[in-house]
């Protein structure tokens, strides 16, 4: 369900920890796709192998292909993810809602 090109997504997985811990929610915009994608933008990509992913843009190469990365060591490497085209970028993360600290538990 989206409103005015904005949509809330629930995040699973740890590769964006600590900025986006597992079970966080992110507010992402679709309309940002028309704007230029730059390194360090946090984007949602529709990856042919891994499905819907939230990742940071590492670089945009001279062929306008986008290489993405996670935020910690457990993330898939940039090389493993491979490049994606701009059409595969679903949106850009505008806001992250993380679980309040008091509700956290020891894993």
């Amino acid at each position, binding site marked *: *369900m989206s409103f005015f090109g904005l*949509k*809330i*997504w*629930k*995040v*699973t*997985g*740890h*590769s*964006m*920890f*600590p900025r*986006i*811990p*597992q079970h*966080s*929610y*992110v507010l992402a915009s679709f309309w940002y796709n028309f704007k230029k994608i730059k390194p360090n933008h946090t984007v*949602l990509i529709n990856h042919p192998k*891994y*499905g*819907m*992913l*939230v*990742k940071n843009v590492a670089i945009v190469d001279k062929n306008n292909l986008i290489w993405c990365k*996670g935020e*910690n*060591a*457990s*993330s*898939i*490497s940039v090389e*493993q993810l491979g490049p994606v085209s701009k059409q595969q970028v679903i949106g850009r993360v505008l806001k992250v*809602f*993380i*679980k*309040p*600290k008091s509700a*956290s*538990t*020891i*894993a």
Partner: protein
Amino acid sequence: MFYNLLNKIDDKIHFSTVSAHCDIPCKIYDPITAQLAVLTMIRMVDLLNEMAEKTKFTANDQAQFARLVAQKESHGIKVKEEITVIWGDFIKAPQLEKFPELHDLVHSIMLASSSAKQHINKAITLDLLTKVNRFAEIFWQCKGFTTYTATCPYPPEQELVYPVLTK
């Protein structure tokens, strides 16, 4: 506040999910590998000290000396690798809140491991073992297990922290 609100909405309408996909989230972590690596270093130091008492080195002695030093080196690196994997992949905000000493402890293990590699000194390797044992103790507490200390029944017969795995 927003999180709790979104969480309640999610219970009703289920937001689409997006994955922060990890490499291989195998969740298999155990500090025993690091503890055994330190024991190996201590054992290598004992054997090297025994060799130091010899007045003359034969060709075999020289080869043995090189092997012992090489093993001490490689296990020093192994200690660092095993500890950093647990520290980097398993330890997260909740564990750090509960055990704020963790960052300093891990850093001190890195330094102690380097020092144990640089010297043939039992006191330094025993200090490394103390630190790695403390790390193991914290790890098992994070996992919800109590621990006990026992002397390992093989050389170098040092005290190790073990988990009580029956809850």
